[in-house]
C-alpha cells in the first residue's frame, strides 16, 4: 500500500476529529466552558440520525436540518440555565473551568443515563453510503469521504465567520480577553452563549456523520470528548485553524501507525503526540502565549 494512500485514509478520518475538536474549541476557547458532556450531544445526534433513517427513511444529511438547530437550542439552554450561574460566580478563569468540569461531568451522566433508558444500551448501526469511492485511484468508503468533505465545509464556514465578520471579530476578542471585550462594548454573556451553542451545533453535525460509519451506543460520548480535548490542546485553545490542522495530523498519525507500526498502538499514538506537544509547546502548536 503506497504511503500516500495511508496518509489520505488518515486525513479522511482526521477531518472528523477536526470537526469534533472545532466545536469543542468554540465551547472551551470562546465560552470558556470545559464541557465534559460534549460527546453526549454527539451521541444524541447520532441516535436522532439513526431513528430518522430507520423509522422514516430520512437521509441523515437532510436530517441535520432538524438535529443541528435543535442541538444548538439545547446547548444554548444548557449555557443559560446551568452555566450562567457558574459564570457569574467565578472570579477567575481557573475557577470557572473547575466548576464547569464538575457541573458538566454530572450532566454527562444524566444525559447518558437518559439515553440508556430511552434507547437501551444496544449497539446501533445503519447502512448509509457504504459504497466505494475512488480518489486518485484509491478506494475509500463514500460515507467517510462525505464526512471529511462536510467537516471541511464547516471548518471553512467557521473560519470565514471568525475572520471576515464583525460578529467573528467579537468572538475572537472574547477568546483572547473577556474582560477587555466587555470594556469595548461586547455583550460577553450573550456572545458566550452563542459560541457555546455553536459548538453544540457542530458536534450534532459530527454525530450525524459518525453515525453513518461507526457503530454507536449511549456510552460513546466520552471517547469523542476526550479526543476533542486532546486535539484542542494540541492545536491551541481558542485557535480554530489549529484545531483543524491538529485533527488532520492526529488522523494521519493514527493511520501511519496502524499500517507501519501496529494497529494496537493507534490510541497510544494520540496520547504520545499530545504529550510531545505539551512538553515542547504547552500552548499548543498554534496557540499564542
Amino acid at each position: 500500500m503506497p504511503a500516500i494512500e495511508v496518509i489520505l485514509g488518515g486525513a479522511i478520518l482526521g477531518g472528523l476529529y477536526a470537526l469534533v475538536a472545532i466545536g469543542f474549541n468554540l465551547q472551551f476557547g470562546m465560552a470558556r466552558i470545559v464541557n465534559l458532556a460534549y460527546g453526549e450531544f454527539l451521541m444524541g445526534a447520532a441516535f436522532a440520525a439513526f431513528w430518522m433513517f430507520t423509522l422514516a427513511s430520512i437521509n441523515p444529511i437532510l436530517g441535520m436540518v432538524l438535529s443541528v438547530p435543535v442541538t444548538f437550542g439545547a446547548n444554548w439552554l444548557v449555557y443559560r440555565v446551568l452555566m450562567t450561574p457558574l459564570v457569574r460566580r467565578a472570579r477567575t478563569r481557573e475557577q470557572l473551568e473547575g466548576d464547569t468540569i464538575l457541573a458538566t461531568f454530572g450532566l454527562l451522566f444524566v444525559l447518558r443515563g437518559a439515553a440508556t433508558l430511552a434507547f437501551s444500551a444496544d449497539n446501533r448501526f445503519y447502512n448509509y453510503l457504504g459504497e466505494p469511492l475512488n480518489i486518485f485511484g484509491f478506494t475509500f468508503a463514500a460515507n467517510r469521504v462525505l464526512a471529511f468533505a462536510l467537516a471541511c465545509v464547516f471548518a471553512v464556514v467557521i473560519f470565514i465567520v471568525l475572520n471576515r465578520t464583525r460578529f467573528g471579530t467579537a468572538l475572537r476578542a472574547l477568546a483572547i480577553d473577556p474582560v477587555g471585550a466587555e470594556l469595548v462594548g461586547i455583550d460577553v454573556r450573550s456572545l458566550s452563549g452563542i459560541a457555546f451553542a455553536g459548538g453544540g451545533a457542530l458536534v450534532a453535525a459530527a454525530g450525524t456523520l459518525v453515525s453513518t460509519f461507526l457503530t454507536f451506543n449511549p456510552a460513546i460520548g466520552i471517547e469523542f470528548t476526550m479526543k476533542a480535548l486532546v486535539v484542542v490542546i494540541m492545536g491551541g485553545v481558542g485557535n480554530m485553524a489549529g484545531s483543524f490542522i491538529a485533527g488532520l495530523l492526529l488522523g494521519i498519525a493514527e493511520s501511519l501507525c496502524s499500517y507501519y507500526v501496529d494497529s494496537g498502538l493507534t490510541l497510544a499514538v494520540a496520547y504520545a503526540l499530545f504529550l510531545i506537544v505539551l512538553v515542547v509547546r504547552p500552548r499548543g502548536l498554534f496557540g499564542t502565549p
Partner: protein
Amino acid sequence: MHTRLRRIAAAATVATLGTFAAAPVSAADAPKSIRIGYAISLSGVNAQGAATTTLPGYDLWVKDVNDAGGIMVKEFGKKIPLEVAAKYDDTSSAETLLRLEEKLMSQDKVDFVLPPWSTGFNLAVAPIFAKYGYPQLAVTANANDEVQLVKQFPTLFFFLNQPAHFGGALIEVLNKFKSAGQLNNKIAMLSVGDQFGAEMSAGFGAGLKASGYDIVLQKSYPLGAADLTNEIKEAKASGADTFIAASYPPDTFMLTGTAITQGYNPKVFYTAVGTAFAEYGGNFKDKVQGVMGIGGWDPNLPGAQDYYKRQLAVTGHAPDGWASPVTYASLQILQQAIEKAGTLDRKKVLDTIANGGPWNTVVGPIDLKTHIREHQIGAGQWQGGQFVGVSPSDFPGVKPVIFPKPAW
C-alpha cells in the same frame, strides 16, 4: 421398567397432590411466588452485551412461565408463579457485582439467582454461588480451564464450550476445502486488543498452525477503533484465502462494512461476536450470504422458531444466532429441573440439573452431567437470511457450508 415405575409414581404423586391443592391447608404452605433475583450490567461498558444477549431472555422466560400459571412444584402441589424480587445494576464493575450477589443470597434470600454477563464476571461470582449453594447457569462465559473450574465450584455450569472448540469447528471447515485443493493455506487474522481477542487468536492460531496453515497477517487493533480500512486493505493484499477476526460487535460491523466497500472477497470471511446478531443480517441484507462466524444455532429445532418470534414480540429484541437462545435454554433447564425435583430446595434442584438430563430446550437436548455443555455448534454461517450452524459436521442439524463465500 424402572423409569416407567418412577413415572407412574410421579404421576400418582402429582394426582394426589393435585387434589390436595384445592384444600386450603396445603395452599397455605406454598410460597406466593418463586423469587428470582439477578445482578447484571444495566450501565457501563458491559451493558450492550447484557442488553443484547441476556436480559431479553430473562424477561421472556419470566413472562412465558407466568403466562402458563407458574412452575409446577410437587412439594406444594401447585403451580407457583415467578417473581423478579430483585434486579440490580452492577454498573459493569466486578466489585459492585460481588457485593450485590452477596446481598441477593444473604439478605434478599431469593430462591434462585440468574447469572451476570461476561466471562470475567461469571468467574468472579462463582465462589459466591458455591458458598451459598446457588446453581449458576453461566451462559455468556467460556474459559480454557472449564474442567478444573467446575470441579472447584460444584454449583457452576458452563453452557459455552472452551475456545479451542470454536477454533476447531472453523478449522474442520477449512481443512475440508484445503485438502480438496480449493483453499490455500494462508490466513489473515485480526483480533480486538483485549482479553477476548488475545485468547481467541491464541487458541485459533495454535490450532491453525497445527493443521499446517500459515498466518501471513496477524494484527491486533484497539477496542473502539475508529477506522479499520488499512487493516482490510492489508488483508486483501496478503493473498490469504481465509480471513479470521476475533472481533467484538462494533468492530465486527466495521470490518464487514469496510470489506464490502473495499471489495474484499476472501473465500472464507469469518468474524466473531456480533456476526450472529439479527442486526448484522438486517444491516448488510443479502450481502451476508456465506459470512461465517462464531456460534450458530439450528432454527429448525422444535420450538426454536416460536421462541424467536416470541422474544421479538415480547421484548422487541430479536435473538442472536448464538448465545441468546442458549440463555433461554438455560432457563428452560432451570424450570424443568424444579419441576422434576418437585421442590425449591436448591441442593436438590442442583443435583437434578446435573443428573436429570438430557433436557429438551430450544437449542436441542442438553446434558449437563459434567457441568459443561460439551456438544454444541462451534461455527455458523449466514445462509438465506439466517445465521445457522455449520460445524462440527457431526452435530445434528448443521447445514452444509456455502463455499466459497459469494462476492458481496
